[in-house]
């Protein structure tokens, strides 16, 4: 395999990683601050994509669709926090998993009632429809570069929010010293609701950004949720920086294993068997990575209080 192709595949891995980061950031933020395992994060992703696709179709503007998708997910997240999630903070993770799993089922059926069982359309925005020759001789879809840009912008925004603002300070303090923050007169319930809404908005953004490349359909959230959990575990539960590191690593391992293995296995096995063996190895690569990280660094690559 020549080096240009390898470089392109690495870029592909980075795109997938950034897409996963947008999902993982919200999930890990919510876990880090409130200690809630939110399985319904995938549902917020789905709602963002459906709402965004609908607004994009009506107005013709992808940017408006993106705002609408983020707003819809944030509002649904806020409503969920106020009615259900805040009752779960004090309960153990099993109860949280059970309740948020129920939310997945409810969300899927609700979306089906509103939009029907058929997948809906969300196209690539005009401005990013073409390709850019970022690597000589390899036309690379501009939209994939836009995803990388959006992901980096979201990461920068989160860093600024958490490290440089008063709200971020409260979030950090609330994570470690919840009782003291409360004693100082901070409305911790409002803070948590806000964090949950921010997590929802990030999921909505991820859904909207993924829409032009992936099927916008009922159940789309669960497909990406599994990889997202791998990212969060690899990166370190509750750590946004860990989510970034984990997402890029998972994206690269997943893509490169699919790119390199078929070629490599063909060197040692006859073609008829090689394709099958490569596929089987590629399918477990990401989970193998997770197992190795858990064995060597059970707290994840960049743990929360490192």
């Amino acid at each position: 395999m020549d080096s240009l192709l390898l470089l392109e595949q690495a870029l592909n891995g980075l795109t997938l990683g950034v897409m996963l980061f947008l999902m993982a950031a919200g999930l890990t933020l919510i876990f880090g601050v409130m200690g809630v395992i939110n399985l319904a994060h995938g549902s917020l992703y789905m709602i963002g994509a459906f709402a965004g696709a609908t607004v994009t179709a009506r107005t013709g503007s992808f940017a408006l669709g993106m705002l609408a998708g983020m707003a819809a997910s944030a509002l649904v997240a806020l409503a969920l926090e106020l009615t259900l999630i805040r009752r779960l903070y004090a309960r153990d993770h099993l109860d949280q998993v059970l309740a948020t799993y129920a939310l997945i089922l409810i969300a899927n059926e609700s979306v089906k009632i509103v939009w029907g069982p058929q997948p809906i359309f969300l196209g690539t925005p005009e401005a990013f429809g073409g390709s850019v020759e970022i690597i000589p001789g390899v036309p690379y879809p501009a939209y994939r570069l836009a995803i990388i840009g959006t992901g980096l912008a979201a990461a920068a925004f989160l860093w600024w929010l958490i490290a440089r603002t008063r709200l971020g300070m409260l979030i950090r303090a609330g994570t470690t010293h919840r009782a003291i923050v409360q004693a100082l007169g901070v409305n911790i319930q409002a803070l948590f609701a806000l964090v949950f809404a921010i997590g929802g908005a990030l999921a909505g953004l991820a859904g909207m950004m993924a829409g032009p490349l992936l099927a916008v359909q009922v159940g789309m959230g669960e497909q990406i949720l599994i990889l997202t959990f791998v990212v969060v575990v690899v990166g370190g539960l509750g750590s946004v920086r860990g989510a970034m590191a984990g997402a890029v690593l998972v994206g690269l391992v997943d893509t490169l294993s699919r790119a390199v293995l078929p070629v490599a296995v063909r060197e040692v096995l006859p073609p008829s068997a090689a394709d099958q063996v490569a596929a089987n190895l590629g399918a477990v690569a990401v989970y193998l990575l997770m197992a190795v990280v858990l064995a060597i660094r059970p707290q994840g690559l960049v743990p929360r209080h490192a």
Partner: protein
Amino acid sequence: MSCTRRDLLGASAAVPLALATPALAQSGPIRIGMITTLSGPGAALGNDIRDGFNLVVKNAGGRLGGLPVEVVIADDALRPENGRAIAERMVRRERIQVLTGIVFSNVMLAVAPVVLPAATYISANAGPSQLAGEACHANYFNVAWQNDNLHEAVGQYVTQQGKRRAYLVAPNYPAGRDALTGFKRFFRGEVVAEQYTRLDQLDYAAELAAIRTAGPEAVYIFLPGGLGINFIKQYAAAGLRERVPLYGPGFSFDQDVFPAVGEDALGCFNSSQWALDLPVPANRQFVDTFEREYGRLPSLYASQGYDAALLIGSAIAATRGRVGDRAAFAAALKRADFQSVRGRFRFGNNNHPIQTIYMREVVKDEKGRIVNRTIGTAFEDHQDAYAAQCKLT
């Protein structure tokens, strides 16, 4: 979790006493069990089969073959164990004698041992090789296709087009491997690679880069449902659509998918036993009434549900409603005495179709909608590869 819904069709239609035959003495409509997938990622398929089937019943005022029927619908949620539980309830408790509707082969294989000893099953979609070959059954009919047929057709067509190097992509599971086997059965050129992908794969960038580097003359995909949507969108975005023609079975290129992929599917080629524009009177009526009733264009799945209802109706008429007389009912089904929307249609020895498989191209019609246009035939009177292993005559 299996939500059951009953569409009581034509129950209110009074049965004139003069028409009631002795076999109908127990009275009430003939009940037809429909086990199909109405939730989860496969919901759009089951939805279309159900709507196509119900359309025939509705057009005839709640009747099939001249007699009132009640379609009992249940959702298997794409889970074989659900399908099996529903089948047990329908066949053993509710004593339903005629069943249909299953979308997926894994559900079909779980349900067959429950249904076939005690009832007749007419498949409107799933066509696993077992039930066409050694495990074929006098009470099992498939009105759609054997699973391999549409893949075989593209293999044949790509060969006819003089393409010598083909790149194949399918998910790494039994149906995916079977699909590529079907393609290779009739493809005479070189298979550049068989790329097996994950069943939950989202991003195909790695595979697309490999395809561009390999430079094949044709790419064949079997990626059902959302997988296909992901692939088609990304294939177009990577600029490959203009460089290497994309082929697939009709499953990835029909009205259930077009609204989601839009213009990204234009110019792709696919195979099907049915097409929107087939110049058959029964088809014109089907497409018109379907669009009027549901406000959307039918897919091949809808055509299969519609034909299943027509077939069942023909056998109900021939046996005058004695659906419990399984030998007579099966004999009537086997005659396939109905106007199929795909034109000529008959059953082979294994109760699977012998039929023409068409090639279609995805185009924009005069109203600007994304549709399939028939461009030729891959096979005429095509029979599946397993018929010889079936002992039925």
